[in-house]
């Protein structure tokens, strides 16, 4: 009996352990889902839930935005100012953000917005310098494509060709428009004699 009891107690303990482990694992998985949900909620904001039956209206159109646009807020602010064609003010905002930012990713996006502002002002050299500042932090196909575009605008076909060639291998393979972008870049390269 004792043996039987000992064996029985061991099996019970084993079952309890398995149940606890399963519960813990389930709890861990649930925590992961919860975290994802909380992150989604925080990024989408708490301004309403999108449903298939429609989106609650708003007065200024700021609600229900596709907030997956992950540009830093400092860049979005500068972008908003630039959208009003106030490029000088936008650049001031960017300069202020660059001075305080400790994130290379944020600085990268700020330099790109700065370059975009210069492009809109057709200040090609300033735009290229800003893009080069971004390049020093990160190299992406989009960055090199922009540098090629500015070089073309300056009339520097050789430099443009080089930039476009650098862009091709950096097009993300996961991008659903990967082929489209690659074809675009190849067309530009071909057009420039590359």
């Amino acid at each position, binding site marked *: 009996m004792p043996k039987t009891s000992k064996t029985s107690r061991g099996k019970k303990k084993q079952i309890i352990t398995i149940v606890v482990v399963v519960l813990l694992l389930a709890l*861990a998985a649930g925590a*992961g889902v919860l975290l994802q949900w909380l992150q989604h909620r925080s990024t989408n904001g708490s301004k309403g839930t999108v449903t298939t039956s429609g989106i609650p209206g708003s007065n200024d159109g700021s609600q229900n935005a596709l907030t997956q646009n992950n540009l830093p807020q400092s860049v979005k602010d500068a972008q908003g100012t630039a959208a*009003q064609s106030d490029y000088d003010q936008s650049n001031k905002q960017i300069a202020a953000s660059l001075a305080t930012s400790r994130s290379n990713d944020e600085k990268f996006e700020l330099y790109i917005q700065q370059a975009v502002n210069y492009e809109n002002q057709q200040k090609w050299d300033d735009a290229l310098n800003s893009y080069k500042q971004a390049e020093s932090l990160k190299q992406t196909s989009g960055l090199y494509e922009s540098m090629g575009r500015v070089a073309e605008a300056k009339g520097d076909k050789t430099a443009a060709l080089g930039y476009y060639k650098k862009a091709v291998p950096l097009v993300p393979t996961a991008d659903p428009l990967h082929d489209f972008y690659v074809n675009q870049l190849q067309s530009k390269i071909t057009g420039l004699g590359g």
Partner: protein
Amino acid sequence: MKLALLMVAMAATFLVGYAKTADAWPVYGRGQFYGYFKNIRDFWGDSVWHTNGPAENAVPTTITSADQFITFTLDKLSHGVGTQDGIGASFIIQTMIGSARDYPPTAAQIADWEARVRYADAQGLITWNQMVSYQLNSYYQGPCSGYNCDQKPGDANPNDDAFYDIGTTNVASAIVFRNSGGGVAYMIRHLCANPIGTISPLTPSPTYNLTGTSTVSDTTVIPGQTITFTHRLTNSGPDNAPNVRYTVYDQSGAAKASGGPFTLGATTNTVNTNNFKIPAGSLPGTKFCQYVHFTPQNQLGGSGDSAQACATVIADFDLTPTVTPSTGSAQQNDSISFTYTVYNPGPTPSTLTTCKIVGNNHTSGYTPLPQQDADRNSDPGYTPPSTICPTNFLEGTTTTVATETVDVGNAAPGSRICRSLVLNPKDQNGGFRASAEACVVIAKTPYVHFQGNDVWAGGGFAAVNPACNASSKITTSAHALKDGSVAGGGVEYAAYALSKITNFGSAGRAIINPAAPTGKMLTFSNVTSANLGFYGAPQHCINDYVATYSGTPVTGQPTTIDVNQGTGTYQINGAHTFHGDVPNGSQQIWLVNGDVTIDGDIKYSDSYNSVGDMPSLVIIAMGNVFVKDNVKQMDGLFITRGTFNTCSNAPSGNLSINDCNNQLVVNGSVIAGSLTLLRTYGADGNDDSVRKNPAEIFNFSPEMYLKSALNGSNPSTLRTVDEKDLPPRY
């Protein structure tokens, strides 16, 4: 060890739970790579709108207005729900309004989208061509192929659009829509028409509708009146209307006032009031209007106008036609004129008014018509002058509508040439109005002629005025005839007066122009040196015939004395009447202490056998000598301290041609305190020669030289000729 393994397992399950749900949270109800409409996962993409390569933009950069963008997008939508263009257009339309995924979009969704786009454009919230940076991208889900088909089981051709976060920043040319807060709301890349970056609904267009109302303080006005126009804008809401502007125009299109921009709440605002004074002379029926033009009309823009508020000038007038003749009377062959005027006391100008000039000739005794509210007609054959009518007669103004010159011609004296002016309408109620009839009486100015001697005026009788210095004057009438000659009173030889001589000719000529020598060559007056002046004596007493015969015994005589009797000298008391033929050789002197009336001709014989046969009649009246109208001839010397009246039985007042119309011829001489010449004979006829015929003729006959008053020859005998020497002496 077991605990460590448990922790690892828990971490692993946590990560699995986190990762597996990473794409599960939807964007507009869909996770990344999941189609917007069908929720089908996909990793293959194309431009939202088809392009033919890098050289062609899916959205032309030439699109620079809401209308162009809407037209272009709706054209894509019209390609159909199963097309890439149609799917992309639906995708853009619905994401721009954040609507439900009704595929294709409903008419209401499209209307909402158009309103938001137009509103954004109107608010300056769209930049049509700008380089932007972005991370979020969208793409078209076309037919599956290869690996992609595994992602879209059961639907090889989803015809859908999807979002994805490319994870890196790209830069592209795009149309940028901002929301009313200033942030970026939506971006569409020119190259591929892909919505990129922050994709949020455009600011909903407010809903409002403006209407304009214009009113005027008085819709019926008169010149000089001040009226007030009021212009209001009403926003029927429910939202405020931004950037409202207005302009007030008048009926000619001239801008009177403007204002804005301002925000108009859901209410009625008076945006403008202005006073306007109706100009003087504004014709009845003239409209003075204003309206307000405003923008926008509603949330879609546009503009609107209020209905015109008008004030119409009414008719309120009362015309007075007047005919004014150049003279009240005229003589044959004269030129006369009539002036036709219309006075409008107002307060408004008249409506278009016609004028009719009516001409009528009337016989003697006619009474002109007064102003009447009736029509009149002219005599047959009358041709009226032209007028300025029809016309509008301005208020407070007298307007001359015509003038007319009329030649009197041979119109009979006593007749009347009459004119009327007939207006229609007379006032705002219409109808005729004839002026008071203006008539010119055809008159004549009878003349007196003295033949055979001079005429003397002045001095008088010493018994009446011992100084004999009366400032006697001679005044007769004269008239210029068409042939250039003058008809008038005059004397064959000289005319003397201690005072003025007016229109009385001398030297056998009539005179009408005092400045001309003709007719005054033997005129001597003491009041002017212009021509033979101051040659008259300062005083001159008439011979005192009365004193000479005052000693004659007073005898009784019938009151009516026929001078057909023999020689005799008589003094008789009281008024007596004389007539009859004086027999040859009869010498009669009558001193009448009273008035003398001549009621019939007194004639000498016109046949003498000797000087002694020549009769002589002297009638001296202490009173007046009254000659009745039937008397045509008086021969003799007639003396009166009073008046010698040639038509004593004339009616009172003005004489007509029917009165005293016999010519009176006095053969002899008349010495009188004053002459009253009333005969109306002559001065008319069918030619100018007969129009010079005098009414009275005083012939100093040869008998006057041959028979003195006392028939004596001694120096004390009173003479019938009174002389005065003038240089050169003769």
